[in-house]
């Protein structure tokens, strides 16, 4: 028999109370229980970075976190980055600079990029590349993503 538990979790500012199988990971919980399919699953072993989101303010691989571990936590996903992470300018720059093609890595890539910018890092291309080096993108070759992140930092610095 699958073991279940009830969890209360706030996602993008909205509170949810749900019963979950204990073995269900946070990515699957968001996607199948809450219908928030913006978070994607790419490998289920924490390497590709597609599932990266914010858990209590820091980035985490949602495929490696059990939904029960998010009980009482604040989760922010791509559906909330514009409003809850002040990321409109980053999103605008991703859009204008074509920093996504198929869009599958984008949720995780945005999370990692937002983290880089929030931590006050510079518009240094090598540093940016190092920081996003845990997010796999097969389409862009990464250059447009680095451009978009650096443009955002430069714009914010005025």
């Amino acid at each position: 028999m699958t073991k279940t538990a009830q969890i209360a979790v706030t996602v993008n500012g909205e509170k949810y109370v749900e019963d979950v199988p204990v073995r269900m990971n946070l990515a699957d919980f968001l996607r199948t229980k809450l219908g928030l399919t913006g978070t994607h699953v790419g490998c289920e072993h924490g390497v590709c970075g597609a599932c990266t989101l914010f858990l209590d303010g820091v980035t985490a691989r949602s495929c490696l976190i059990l939904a029960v571990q998010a009980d009482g936590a604040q989760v922010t996903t791509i559906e909330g980055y514009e409003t809850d992470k002040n990321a409109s300018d980053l999103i605008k720059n991703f859009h204008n600079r074509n920093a996504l093609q198929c869009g599958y890595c984008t949720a995780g890539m945005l999370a990692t990029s937002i983290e880089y910018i929030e931590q006050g890092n510079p518009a240094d291309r090598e540093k940016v590349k190092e920081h996003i080096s845990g997010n796999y993108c097969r389409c862009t070759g990464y250059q447009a993503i680095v451009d978009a992140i650096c443009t955002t930092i430069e714009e914010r610095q005025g």
Partner: protein
Amino acid sequence: MSGPATIFDKPRDYIGKSIPRSDAARLLRGQGRYVDDMQLPRMVHAVFLRSPYAHAKINSIDVSEATQATGVIAVYTGKDIAKHVEPYIGVLSHLPGLRSPAQYPLAVDVARWQGEPVAVVVCTSRALGEDALGLINISYEQLPAVTDTLDALSSESPLIHNEYDSNLAWKREVEAGNLEEALAKEDVIIVEKQIKFGRHTGVTLETRATVCDYIPGDDELIMYYAGQAPHMLQFILAKHMNMLEENVRIVAHDVGGSFGIKVHTYGDEIATAIIAKLLRRPVKFTADRLESFVTDIHARDHVVDAKIGVRKDGTIVGMGFNDFTGIGPFSMYPRTSAIECNQILNLTGAPYQFEHYHAVGNVVFQNKTLMCQYRAVGHPIAMAISDCMLEEAARAIGMDPVQIRRKNLIPDDAYPTKSATGMRFDDLSHHACLDKLLTIMDYDALLADQAENRDNGIYRGIGFVSLVEVTNPSPMFYGIGGAPIASQDGATVRLDAAGALHVSSSVTEQGQGTNAILQQIAADVFGVAMERVKVTTGDTATVPYGGGTWASRGAGIGGEAMLLASQALKEQVLDVAAVILQAKPEELDIAYGEVVMKDTGEQKISLGDLAKIVYYRGNELPNDLQPELIATRHYRVTDFPFVFTNGAMAAHVEVDTNTGFIKILHFWAVEDCGRVINPQLVDDQIRGGVVQGIGGALYEECVYDTDGQMQNATMADYLVPMASEMPEITVAHVETYTKTSVLGAKGAGEAGTGGAPAALMNAVNNALAPLDCGMWQMPMTPERVLRALGKIG
């Protein structure tokens, strides 16, 4: 004179501009519609049990325990599924001699590759389904696995298919002139190498996925498809499931990367469709990453014995090779696993003028994952064979690699012309691209930098490639051989009552920007703002019939059809407008959603108002006028089998001779893909393609043991390019429009991948030249570099 070509006589708002894609807005907000996002009422999950062995008899399968497990709706074996499907054979008549036995979606009596599905559990959740897999009891009897391409052809090798006399699937020989005789001449310097290319795979971030649903009463099968060729799959499902084609609907929404991986026919996806029909409810199959590695098609597994002959002045006398490629136990259906080898035979040396050519391709069955077309199909190998041998020959005669290319590249004014292998070329620009490349890379500065660093024991290298790339294919590519693969495409454009344009096309979107460029073309040619153009692709129920995405045809073929349809609708609108305005159609034009006087630009009537008259107030029109504000046009390439593009690329690398690591300092790509519709989209396609080529050149390899077990089927062990190691890539263009269409656009999606490996191997060998060693195997791993340097082994 009017007609579609006049669109290029005036300034344009969209074609040729780097407009951001409108699709991207919702993707950036997590509003993608990928197959795995779908939840349908009563949907269940198909979870496949796969052979753990590369070659094994399936003696018995006992599903009784699994059937009773929690959440299990049904369990099917390969034999069960086989009852409901016509098997398929991956051969085409224009590849004479290619043989492959009939294949079923799941293995029936024998499993022939590690990962081949052998049974499937249908369950209320994926997790419960995986639990149930453990309860299926299968008795396997292991058979010897055939895993070495060359050994597979020896008379001692076990046979994968007993009905054949060997493990050879196909052999083809191409000859021009007399290579052996030409190379025997005294003044010819010969270079011979064995070049190995590692088997690798696409690793799309979205794994393969499908949701299939069956509607009883309508006898309708719907497949929600994460793939490139909806109409092809419609044909295939109908044929092999014995259904009427019109009752099969394929719907493709967002696709998380494809690169050719998702243009093929997979047994687990067909089985999912069959199960949906049997159970009369939606069934979802999403491959996990482990399944993906062992079932997505692999590609580029080649051992090539190559030779080239040049004269002291650098002229190529001829080149040739013997290529051995290991595929899977079957030739993939319906595009065949021989096309990659065929491309190599046809295209090696294509940029150059020479008389003598002798190439043999041997396509060999293996007990490994099936192999088939993957981005740039065969080109990475073909370009590497010719250009790496050419630069090695240049070293042998002490000539600069640019000079040897100048000597041999087809002159830019030689077109139309043919290669030694009979490939027909027009509108190419090898020399112009090389000129541009040398400028943007500042070749002289790099040479000076190289010399300075060598004095300090730092080994930097510069490597080039001149390449061609097959794009915009005609029916000569597949259709002629009997494949249900369209090489023509259509576009429909329709004006609605608000003055907006609804367009649909049979080419498809996987993130490259197909929808965006169709929008740009329709908007410019018809005369509305881009925001007023809505694009539909991917649904066989609503789009015109066509080929989808493959061989870089979206812009060239889909775009041309959209241009023609938009022009046709414009003429229809102006015909109606002329009646309403009591003017002549040739006096009118459409600009920014208004019908205007062509000479003054005076706005006469908005498209919305015109449409409302047509749709609501037809009483205001003469009785003999029955306007339609919808037009469909189709387009295919007729003048040539394919429209080639060409490019010149260069890599600048530094080889750490202590660790064997190769650092790519910079990469340049000059591409002539004809008219560039959206420079930003094209340039980033090229960058993404280059990085994919870097993957094959430095990192990616499917490693198998002698038992046919893939050793590195995880994202931690199979190495894909990540950001830190990737160079900045400078892209530039020469634009030689193709005369085969009004739009003049060729394809651009694959060239980066086709050229990058050759440029990288050349750069590495250029770096290592003073150390008297070279790299002739991809991927060029640190271990292999250290061995080449003699530092180990």
